[in-house]
């Protein structure tokens, strides 16, 4: 029997961060990059309908931020977790975010951009 997979989900805000950038929607090329990478690295991905509204405190400005995100759900092997984190780290740069929300079987991590 195949090893059980981990259900992972992550959120990509629909707009660029207002501190890092201008708070405007992303260019389609950014989403196209994400679809290419998701298919190439993991093949299967689920796209829940509708978007997710959230509110959080910006760790730098301590102001309250509302955002709207798209959610993606993946079923992956344990050994692919670092690859997913690496993808989300790159996504932080391309989607101009301070971090991305990643849920791994219910445990949440915030993945930031590459440190270098």
């Amino acid at each position, binding site marked *: 029997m195949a090893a059980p997979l981990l259900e992972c989900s992550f959120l990509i805000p629909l707009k660029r961060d207002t501190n890092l950038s201008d708070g405007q929607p992303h*260019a389609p090329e950014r989403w196209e990059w994400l679809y*290419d990478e998701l298919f190439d690295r993991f093949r299967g991905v689920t796209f829940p309908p*509708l978007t997710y509204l959230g509110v959080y405190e910006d760790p730098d400005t301590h102001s309250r931020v509302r955002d709207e995100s798209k959610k993606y759900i993946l079923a992956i092997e344990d050994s692919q977790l670092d690859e997913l984190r690496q993808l989300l780290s790159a996504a932080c740069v391309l989607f101009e975010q301070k971090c991305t929300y990643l849920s791994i079987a219910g445990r949440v991590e915030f993945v930031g951009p590459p440190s270098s």
Partner: protein
Amino acid sequence: MIHANKYFDLRGQIIDASTLDEEERQLIDKLQQFSDDHPDARTAEYESYWIRRVGDFYLARGLSRRDVTRTVVWRIAQDLNSRLMIAAGLAKVHDYRDELENLILLKYKSRRAFCEATGLSEDMLSHVLAKRKNLGIQTLADALAKIGYTIHITQVPDILH
């Protein structure tokens, strides 16, 4: 949607469809029909459909997943998805600053390397890429000329075909 073997994407660039076989053309027709029938990107119906459909089609032909993402059909399917996302307000047509950032990401090791090659200041580039400032056309043209690039004028795309 493909005229004289050419597909014009959102960026006004031509995707050459002359090498597509009959099955690939039929697949594009199905993708187009599905996007027409499910135009609201917020429902994610087309988004869920096209990746599976195009992926399965080419994996069955023995292509690697990376190679699938380089096919003409994948690029057209992506473009249809992008049009739906823009129409739904989930994405926004890029401006030259996004293109500039893509160029830097793809061709240069760092923003500093790009600035050294073009003569632009790092401070100015930082503001431009953060969409806080714009570059003058002549400044941009001069900078791009130093690295073998130029500005080009193109027709504003018709988002929904």
